[in-house]
Structures are given as C-alpha cells and as structure tokens.
C-alpha cells in the first residue's frame, strides 16, 4: 500500500467520522459545526480527485456560505429543541439503519461494477474547445455544451429568491431582508469588514477571470463576492437593499437575462439557440459571465440574508 493510499484512507476516515458525528450527535448546533468541518474537508477530496473546479465550488459553498447559512439557522433555532419526543422508536431507527445500509451496499456494488475502461467525454470536450477559445474544459461544458442547464440553474437561483421573499409578512413586503446588524464602528469586526473585502474582491475577480483557462469561474467568484458583501452587512457598515428596488431586481436577472438574449441572438441570426459565432464566442461568454458573477453574488448574498423583515418606511 503506497503512502498516498494511506493518506487517502486517513482523509476518507476523517470525513466519514465527521459525517457520522453530524448525523448522530444529539445537539443540533454541534451537528452543524460538524457539517461545516465536513464541507471544508470534502474540498480536499475534490482536489485529490483532480477536480479543482468542483473543489473551489465546494470550498465556497460547503465550507463558506452553506456553513454560514446552516449556522445562522442553528443559532436562531437554539430554543426550538422540543422535538425529542418525536424521535422515532428504536425499531423504526433500526429498520431505517438497515435499509439505508442496504442502499449504500447496493451503491458500492454498482460502483465496483462500473465498466473498465470508463466511458468519458473528456476527449470530445477537448476536441471541440476551439469553438469557444477557452482552455478550461469545465467552463466550456458549462457555458457552451450544456449552456441550457446553466441557464436554467440560474433561473432556479432566481426562483429560490422568489420563494424566500414570498415568506415575508405582507407589511414587510418591499422592505429590507434580514435583521439590521449593528456593531461597534471601531471594533474588530468593523476593522475586518473594512480590510478583508478589498482583498476578497480582488480574489473573487481573479478566480472568475482565471476561470476562462484554469479552474475557476463565475459561480466560485460570485460566492466570494457575496461573502464579502455579507461581511460588510454583518459589521453594520451597510444595509441590505429593499427588495422592491428596481436596480436590485435588474442585477438579479442580469445573468440569465443576458444568457437568454445571447441565446435568442443565436436563434435568430446564428446557427442555433445558445450557439456562439466563432469570432465572438470568447467575448460573448465572458460578457455573460460578467453579468452572471454580479447576479450570483447578489443572489447568494440575498439568499443568506433571508426574507424581507423591515418595511421600507420607518
């Protein structure tokens, strides 16, 4: 057994240990902390699997924004643990455990039975990369070959926003999402909120820009920008915009909107819907990505902020 394999086994064991802790621990807050740590470590697995684009996404979501989302909820639900009585009886849990392990076992069998050599689309993706002029194959798949999925996924994000907003109370509609944060303007948090975003914005834009040819992209960059914005909000230096703001709405649809416009352009003038003319492919894709990074940053930030709570007039 090589030292690399030992390392992989240790990594897998730590990750699994965290997963078990997350499921088994009685207290919700601890489970949440466990899951955040799990998210951080899964990013390591992705690097090990040579899927750096996914590792970036996982680091941004699993360890970062997702963690904050879950921790925030856990903190707000601290006093809501009266469900112990609802814990199913031992027999039910035993049944569930047995059946879940059977499913996992079936999955293991299926994984071990996967064919060798494995089918792959990597050569096809590389062979067609000329059409976009971008060297990162994952970006090519996301923005060209499977552009439809990416566009629909952005609509999913928009619907999540609509869903979250629709939970507002009627008087709060049109107001600002989330609680107003106030912090000592000379405190540590405010200090960090002034310093870190400048670094974060550079990193976010770098990750986005490098995504054309190396791992990275609009989503990962957008997630970083969103977290920086939230940091500033949490430090009380700025406030969330009211949901009725037309400008905000425009930013929220800019990404899928531009995607759609370019797609329709391809339908009317070019060869097909979502097809890019050869000479313009790279600038068009980058343009869509610029719109998308704005949309993603705003969407992710607002998803974390929650439903409108404070009405505009006050």
């Amino acid at each position, binding site marked *: 057994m090589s030292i690399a394999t030992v390392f992989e086994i240790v990594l897998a064991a730590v990750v699994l240990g965290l997963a078990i802790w997350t499921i088994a621990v009685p207290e919700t807050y601890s489970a949440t902390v466990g899951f955040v740590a799990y998210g951080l470590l899964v990013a390591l697995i992705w690097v090990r699997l040579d899927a750096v684009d996914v590792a970036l996404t996982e680091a941004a979501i699993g360890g970062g924004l997702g963690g904050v989302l879950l921790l925030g909820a856990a903190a707000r639900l601290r006093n809501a643990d009266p469900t112990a009585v609802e814990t199913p009886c031992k027999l039910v849990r035993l049944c569930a455990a047995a*059946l879940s392990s059977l499913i996992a076992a079936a999955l293991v069998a299926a994984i071990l039975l996967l064919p060798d050599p*494995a089918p792959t689309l990597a050569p096809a993706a590389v062979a*067609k990369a000329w059409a976009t002029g971008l060297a990162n194959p994952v970006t090519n798949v996301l923005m060209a070959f499977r*552009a439809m999925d990416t566009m629909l996924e952005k609509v999913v994000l928009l*619907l999540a926003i609509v869903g979250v907003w*629709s939970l507002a109370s009627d008087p709060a*509609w049109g107001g600002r999402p989330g609680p107003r944060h106030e912090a000592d303007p000379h405190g540590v948090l405010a200090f960090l909120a002034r310093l870190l975003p400048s670094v974060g914005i550079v990193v976010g834009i770098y990750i986005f820009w490098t995504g054309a040819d190396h791992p990275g992209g609009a989503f990962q960059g957008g997630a970083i920008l969103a977290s920086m914005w939230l940091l500033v909000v949490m430090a009380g230096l700025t406030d969330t915009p009211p949901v009725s703001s037309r400008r905000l709405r425009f930013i929220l*649809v800019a990404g899928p909107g531009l995607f*759609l416009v370019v797609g329709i352009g391809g339908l009317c003038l070019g060869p097909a819907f979502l097809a*890019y003319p050869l000479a313009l492919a790279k600038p068009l894709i980058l343009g869509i990505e610029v719109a998308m990074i704005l949309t993603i940053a705003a969407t992710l930030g607002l998803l974390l902020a929650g439903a409108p709570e404070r009405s505009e007039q006050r």
Partner: protein
Amino acid sequence: MLLHPTALEAATTTGGFLLVLSIVVPVSGVLLAFVLGDRYVRLVAFAVVPLGLAIAAATLAILPQSDGPLVYLLGAWPPPLGVALRGDGLSAVMLATTALVISAIAVFATTDFCPAAAETRAPFAFWVLLLAIWGALNTIFIGGDLFTLYVALELLTFAAVPLVSLDGRAETLRAALRYLIFALLGSVLYLLGTALLYGLYGTLDIVLLSRRVSAEAAALVAAALMTTGLLAKTALFPLHLWLPPAHAGAPAAASAILSGLVVKGSFFIIIRLWFNVMPALPGFAATQLLATMGTAAIVFGSVVALWQERLKLLIAYSTLAQIGYLFLMFPLAFDASGRLESDEALAGGLLQAVSHATAKAAMFMAVGSIYVALGHDRITELRGIARARPMSLLAFALGGIALMGVPPSGASLAKDLLLQAAEESGQWWWAVVLQAGGMFTAAYVVLVLAHALAGSDVSIAVTGPASRNQDLAALALALCSLLLGLVPWDPYLPVPFGTAPKVFGIESLSKLLLPVLGGAVLAILLSPWPHPLASSTTWKALASAARPLRRAGIEFGRLVERSDDVLRQWPMAGISLLVVALLLAALMLAAN
C-alpha cells in the same frame, strides 16, 4: 411519432425552434415579471399566455407533417456532448395540455391575485411562479437529456413549494416544508441514478442511452433509484405524506396547478425512463409492483377521501387515488417480448394524465369558488350551494363525471384503451382494478353532489361575490376534459383507429350507469357522514337492510384511515421509500 431508438436525429429538424420557444417564452416571462414587478406582473403573464398557447398549437400542427419527432440541438452541439430537445407525440400532447390548463388558471386567478398599484407579496409571487412552472414543465416534456430533466424537475419543485405557503399560515408553511424536503430527497435519488448511468454509458442523452443500456446490475440499481425518487415526487402511495396538506392548504388557483400539473412532471419522466430509455429492463415483476402500489393508492386515496370533512382535502385525496390510476399502465404495456411496448397502454396512461390534469384543475377551481361563497368547505354543510353557485357546482360535477370515465371523456377513452391492453396481455386482474377505480371515483363525486344537491330549495347566506371569469374558466376546463374522447388523437398518440367512443347508445349508457351506481353504493357503505337523505322513509328501510354491511364498511374505512395516518408519518414514509427502492432493484435484478 414517438421517440425511437433506431433513428438518430443528429440534426435539428424543421420546426425544432418551436421547442426552444416553448421554454424561452415562459422563462423570459419569469425574468421580465420579476424585474418589472408592481402591477406589471399580471400583464406579463397575460402577454405570455397567448404566446404559449400559440406555440403549443403550432407544435401540434407541425408535428404530424414531420416524419419523426421534432429535434433541436442546443448550440448546434450534438449529443452526447451537447443537449438535444426532442418533441414527440407525447410531448406535444403534454405541451398543449399544460398551455390549456395554465391559461385557464391564469383567467381564474385574475381576481384572486390582482396586483395593486403598490406591489404586494402574493400576486407578485403567484404570477412569477405560474410562469416558472410553465417553463419547467415544458422543459420536462421536451428535454432530451436526463440531467437537463433534473434541473427542470428542481425548477418545478422550487416554483411549486412557495405556492403551497402563499398565504403564510403555519400549517401551510409546515406543509410546504414537508413537501420541499421530501421532494429534495426524491430528486437526490434521481440524481444518484443519473450519476451511475453516466458512469456506465458516458452519456445522459435519452436516445443514445436507449441504444446503449443493457441489463447490467449497476444500470438496474440506477433505474430503481431514479424511479423511486420520481415516485416520491409524484406522491404515489405510500410516498404521499406531503401531498394532502400541500394540495389542500394552498389557495385554489395554486392547488389547481399543483394537483393538475405539477405531479405530472415527475410522472412524465418516469414514462420517459421506462418506455424510452430502458423498455427492456424493468421486467414483469417490477411493473406489477408499480401497479400494485397504484391499486393501493386508489383504495387508500378514495376511502380516505370519503372520510374527509373538508372538500379541498377530499379532492387532494382524490388526486392521490388518480395518481395511482396512472400507474396501471405499466404492467399493461408489458408485452410478450418482455419490453414495455404496448401502444394502447402508453396512450391510455397518457390520456388519463391529460384528463386528470384538466378535470382536477377544474374541480379545484370550482371548490375555490364554493369556498368563497360559503366561507368554508365542509362537505356536510354544502346544502343550498346548488342554488347559490350553480355554475361552480356544475363545473365540479362535470369534472367529476369526466374523471369517472363516462363517455365521451378522455378518462373513458383511456379506460377503454387500458382495458383493451389488459385483455390483450391477459392480465384480467388489472381490468378489475380499472373498473373499480372508476367506481371509487364516482363514490366521492356522488357523495359531494348528494350533499350539495340535497335541499336545494334552501337559500343560504353567501359570504363572497361570484366571479363569472372564475366559473367560466373552471367550466371550460371541465368541459374540455369531458370532450377529450372526441379529439382525433392518432397523429400524436398511438390510439388504434376506431376506438373513438360512441357518445350515445346502450353501451355508453351502461358506462355512465355502472360507475355511478357502483359509486353510490360505495359512498353509502364507506362514508361515515350522516346522509342528507337519511330522513326519508325509503332510505330508512334500505339502511336497516344494509346495516351489517355498512358497519363493516365503516370499520374498513376506519382501518384504512388509521393506516394512512401511520404511513404519513415521516419515518414511515422514509422507510417505505427505501423499501420501494430496494424492492424495485431486487425485482429488476431477478427479472434479468
């Protein structure tokens, strides 16, 4: 006209752009409505509705002239790298149904969700989500790639869940959360199967997959997981814990969308999976399992429906039963070659889905109007509604009659086709279930009508205004469902020539009377509610004769209701889900 594995459509066909438009138009509507907000949301929706109808009509018109399904390669990239949209007869029929039902719902909802000058919450969310559901469903009906279907499925869920909790009451929030989490569980299982299929065959394109799949263990595991996930989203018994509270708690227009259309999305993907991707894989036993669950759904759904106090819950449970009815097509499609191939069964199942979509949406709308009129929807206190809201009650009745399978309704044609398939494949037991299903449907419709029509001379205080638009929308949809049997289906669905029902004659009379009488008997035996005619003397004589039977019926009903309560507990539903997945996998493995 159906997707066929032998013909590789490597190029976009003429008219393929219609497929793109059927996605792009509603999605643009969503974006536009979101940005404009205020009072423009409804305006955008009403601009999209005629466009959508026109696109669906154009698709229906152009498909028979094309010598295969319509195909559109997105970005001109051929699969497996790219994603194709494909529209066959099934897609065209579903596209048209969706366009029709959404239009009717839009008309119905104009007054309920009237945007004010200053933007308000509910109308904004409703109109945006309505368009989003349209876009998601259209994508599901024409998506040619299993992962695109996954994204569309999630789009559908994300649009449907907020509709449930639109009025913000605690119980609807709870219903929405249950729905969301269970639906997410379902879609993760679907995605799991997708991952395995990609690992096996290196593509997720439906046509390419259908040519590559073979009966390998991993493929069967994938099929079982995907099917189970979709069943959870379709709410087939016993995975229905989320459906009754979600469908009954939502505002009327939203319920109509959820019950009529949303559950059809995941059902359609099951059809694609079993009939198009892997017709040879499931095997006899797995199809029997699906139909058995369907039968249980019919019994449970109908009996529990008869036990409901509230009309909306009754209809929600009726949806449960009708979903079960849809799954009877699977064993009947199984022919001697060991593949899912029977055209009658496929056409019958899809027609049933179409009839249910139209009829159920109409019924929910009608109940919405009744609710507004009475201020409640308690079944035992419906008397007098026939005079106060004759149009609403008529829409409800027509929808119910259409669902029972009375000619010339679509359900009747569907039943004929399925019965024929049962006869051809020698599975007489499903013929029995098909007949019984019609009677069960009749039972709760008759029950409601009996309560509503009893004492129609009583005049009641009406709390809310009547809306002509709402009644017309409901009535139009109900009529549509009732007349579906007269539509010439053969360009789109493999309906054998000459099966169009005769509207008049002894045969059709028996088709009317059989379910109605059977349903009346069932309603009397199984419903626990005091009957409005209970004071008449003939009734008393009858009742004393049938007392032991009725008592047994009541006991049975109570048993069913209790077990339904248990099965709707979260841990039980979760365990059922895993059991279904494992059973399906085991049966498929055994068959191959």
